[in-house]
């Protein structure tokens, strides 16, 4: 079946679009990154020239059209330069999460049959060296940051500076070769392999073509309101669809300026410092904003608390009207303006959200209560929905508030609900299948429609709401179907709960494993004189268990008896991104968690 071509500004590939747009934008700033604590800017010309050096460098070491090149690094300027450089040379990029352990790296490299590998630094390089003998297909490894490697010699490993030199020398002899390669590209050529987090089994590599990527960029600025004037903060892994889209593809097409967060730990400070105008965040980050404000307010002066409560009342009233679609009276506008000026603007300034004209959430379900709170303080968050196989295909629309739904689908995409309740969807630019897995692809794509694995509903306005993952639906021993994510999201809305996994399949009642929010619970313990030493002892304190119990009880009140959580346990190990229990966007993996903590779970059901 032939698909219609997606063409933007006369370009049918991302590489063509990149060359064209960077010429047009010239010395405008494309990206900023800190170097020894000082922001350094790189223009669109720099972006193109660096990408070209990498492209010619790769050609000089023998890259052929369609070869896979892997990038294993935290977000940085070289990530994007290499991403485009590979594309210009006719290759395909496979991003590898820098938090992956060696065995996961091995799978990603072997499965994609990568010929070249770019690593961030010696830490990432060591992962390759450890399994080098199992990876004969890798011909060369390039290191972005050579620090700590002086004197290190290895036939396959060299610094990216060396590659630049190779590129410059090769270009002097073969100038124009890249333009020929780019000109020969088509809508059907692969751009990237995106491995999906794989909560069960090994990650699968989705094949994304130019059609996919270009179609996604057509959604801006109308539905995804990112424009050339926007400043954005890049902090999620670029291997993940969302960040790749918001920080690589959309800016190439539309010209926003990206700013790299210094590290995953400094995201909050960097946000505050930059105050980006377009903010995409995963629910966990939005939850963090809310809990920071809640904690700060609990410590504020009496006057401060009163002012916040009053302002929030005004904000909530306005939010309710907006949700109902009713017009605001002049006095309501005035009082909200006052509340905003006196209270909300300061809150948003501290969070780094005061300049945000557009904010959106995606990659995981978000609690409607949280969205309502943000609307009350004057920040409307759009919820986006999609998955790697489809791209982003729905979004709530500006000015229309249907919390609990992810909005209607975009033109060029279709959504319907299957007989078993599963959401099936298609898009002009959907993926081309899983690499090396024709059976899995055939299971997922049936007659051109993608079976998303999500269960959901469509309302009469065409708004899609996501109930849960199909495989996550719990059928209790009593035969009752439970969708755990609804309650999990309400639990996560508590400032003390960072993540929760509900358990109860084939069981008499529901239970829950809870990961506490370290910062806020420690703060609570300290203000309430609850002695503790480390994280484990904190989780073991009866006062803390009581605190979480009261939160669970509060959330339970909104659910019917069979849907209530009867018992819970705290996960008393502080998990990091390196742990397999967490996805790269820091969500607990349900299947993994319920397997790993069988002890805790059987304990809850034993008595």
């Amino acid at each position, binding site marked *: 079946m032939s698909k219609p071509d997606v063409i933007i500004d006369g370009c049918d590939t991302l590489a063509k679009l990149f060359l064209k747009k960077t010429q047009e934008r010239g010395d405008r700033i494309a990206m900023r990154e800190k170097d020894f604590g000082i922001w350094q800017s790189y223009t669109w010309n720099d972006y193109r020239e660096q990408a070209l050096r990498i492209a010619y460098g790769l050609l000089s070491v023998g890259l052929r059209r369609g070869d896979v090149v892997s990038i294993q690094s935290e977000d940085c300027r070289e990530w994007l330069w290499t991403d485009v450089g590979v594309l210009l040379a006719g290759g395909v990029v496979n991003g590898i999460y820098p938090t992956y352990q060696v065995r996961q790296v091995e799978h990603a490299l072997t499965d994609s049959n990568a010929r070249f590998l770019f690593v961030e630094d010696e830490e990432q390089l*060591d992962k390759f060296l450890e399994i080098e003998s199992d990876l004969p297909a890798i011909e060369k490894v390039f290191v972005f940051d050579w620090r700590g490697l002086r004197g290190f010699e290895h036939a396959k490993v060299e610094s990216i500076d060396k590659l630049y030199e190779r590129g410059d020398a090769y270009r002097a002899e073969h100038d124009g070769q890249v333009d020929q390669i780019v000109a020969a590209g088509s809508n059907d050529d692969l751009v990237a392999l995106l491995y999906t987090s794989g909560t069960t089994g090994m990650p699968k590599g989705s094949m994304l073509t130019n059609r996919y990527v270009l179609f996604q960029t057509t959604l801006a600025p109308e539905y995804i309101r990112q424009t050339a004037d926007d400043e954005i903060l890049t902090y999620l892994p670029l291997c993940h669809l969302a960040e790749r889209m918001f920080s690589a593809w959309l800016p190439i097409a539309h010209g926003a300026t990206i700013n790299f967060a210094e590290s995953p730990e400094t995201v909050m400070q960097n946000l505050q410092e930059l105050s980006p105008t377009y903010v995409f965040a995963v629910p966990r980050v939005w939850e963090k904003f809310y809990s920071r404000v809640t904690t700060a307010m609990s410590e504020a002066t009496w006057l401060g608390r009163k002012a916040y409560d009053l302002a929030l009342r005004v904000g909530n009233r306005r939010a309710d009207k907006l949700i109902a679609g009713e017009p605001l009276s002049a006095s309501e506008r005035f009082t909200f303006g006052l509340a905003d000026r006196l209270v909300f603007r300061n809150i948003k300034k501290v969070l780094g959200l005061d300049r945000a004209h557009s904010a959106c959430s995606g990659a995981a379900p978000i609690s409607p209560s949280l969205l309502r709170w943000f609307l009350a303080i004057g920040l409307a968050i759009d919820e986006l929905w999609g998955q790697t196989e489809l791209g982003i295909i729905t979004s709530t629309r500006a000015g229309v508030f249907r919390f609990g739904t992810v909005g209607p689908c975009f033109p060029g995409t279709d959504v319907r609900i299957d007989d078993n309740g599963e959401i099936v969807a298609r898009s002009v630019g959907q993926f081309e299948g899983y690499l090396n897995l024709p059976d899995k692809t055939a299971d997922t794509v049936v007659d051109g429609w993608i079976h998303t694995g999500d269960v959901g509903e469509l309302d009469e306005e065409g708004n899609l709401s996501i109930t849960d993952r199909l495989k996550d639906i719990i059928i209790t021993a009593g035969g009752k179907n439970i969708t755990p994510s609804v309650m999990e999201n309400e639990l996560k809305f508590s400032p003390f709960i960072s993540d929760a996994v509900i358990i109860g399949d084939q069981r008499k009642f529901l239970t829950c494993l809870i990961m506490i929010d370290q910062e806020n619970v420690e703060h609570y313990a300290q203000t309430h004189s609850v002695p*503790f*030493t480390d994280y484990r002892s904190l989780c073991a304190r009866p006062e803390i268990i009581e605190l979480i119990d009261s939160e669970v009880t509060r959330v339970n009140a909104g659910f019917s008896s069979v849907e209530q959580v009867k018992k819970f346990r705290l996960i008393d190990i*502080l998990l*990091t991104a390196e742990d397999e229990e967490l996805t790269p966007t820091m969500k607990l993996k349900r299947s993994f968690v319920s397997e790993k903590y069988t002890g805790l779970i059987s304990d809850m059901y034993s008595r």
Partner: protein
Amino acid sequence: MNRPLLQMLNIETYYGPIMAIRGVSLDVYEGEIVAVLGANGAGKTTLLKTATGALDSSKGQVLLDGEEIQCRDPDWVARKGIAHVPEGREVFPFLSVAENLAMGAFNRNDADGVAADLRIVYDYFPLLEEMREKMAGYLSGGQQQMLAIGRGFMARPRLLLLDEPSLGLSPALVQEIFEIISRLNQEQELTILLVEQNANIALQVSQRGYVMEVGGMVMDGPSDKLLESEDIKEFYLGKKDEGVRGRRRWKKRKTWR
């Protein structure tokens, strides 16, 4: 277990506007040696000073045998039975060794007991007896450390706080001093709270340990367990797996498990 001899609960201590300790809790039981490890600036010394009243905590409690002793004068706390051997020894340089030791017993009036304890100190540190008439300022670093410990012991405390006894001493001397610390604990039933950078020796002589980082506790446990912990090995004992290249420069992420 019965009630701890020393209990610190949710201690917060400030230096002016700077919070040096942010909510630290710790227990010391009778007869134990407890080690507190941590890098420079982690707040270890501040913790000891807060225990003895040299610094006042702005929050939290210090309990000695169940009695609140926080924010009292240091001499009052000393009378209650806590002796502090400060970092850098701080002997009285213009007093003789014997006078320094006598200062340790300033709050005692049982002359016989003091004489007996002086004998004990001289038995543990024969060098001090030889030099008893010498001015303390003329002693070597190791001798001064012995004197400081001896002075602390002369108060016959219920709890002895030792702040970095290994500071600036040769490895052989460190070994010797820690042997004596261990013997004081066993033979004289002296309870000791020990703050150290030398994690290896501190964990060898102690029964339990705590790890402090930037003003908070990150880990605690029996000392033999701590010696096995990957993070302690890498960050405090300098034992790291050198990796495939034989020279690893990057640091693993601390997890404190």
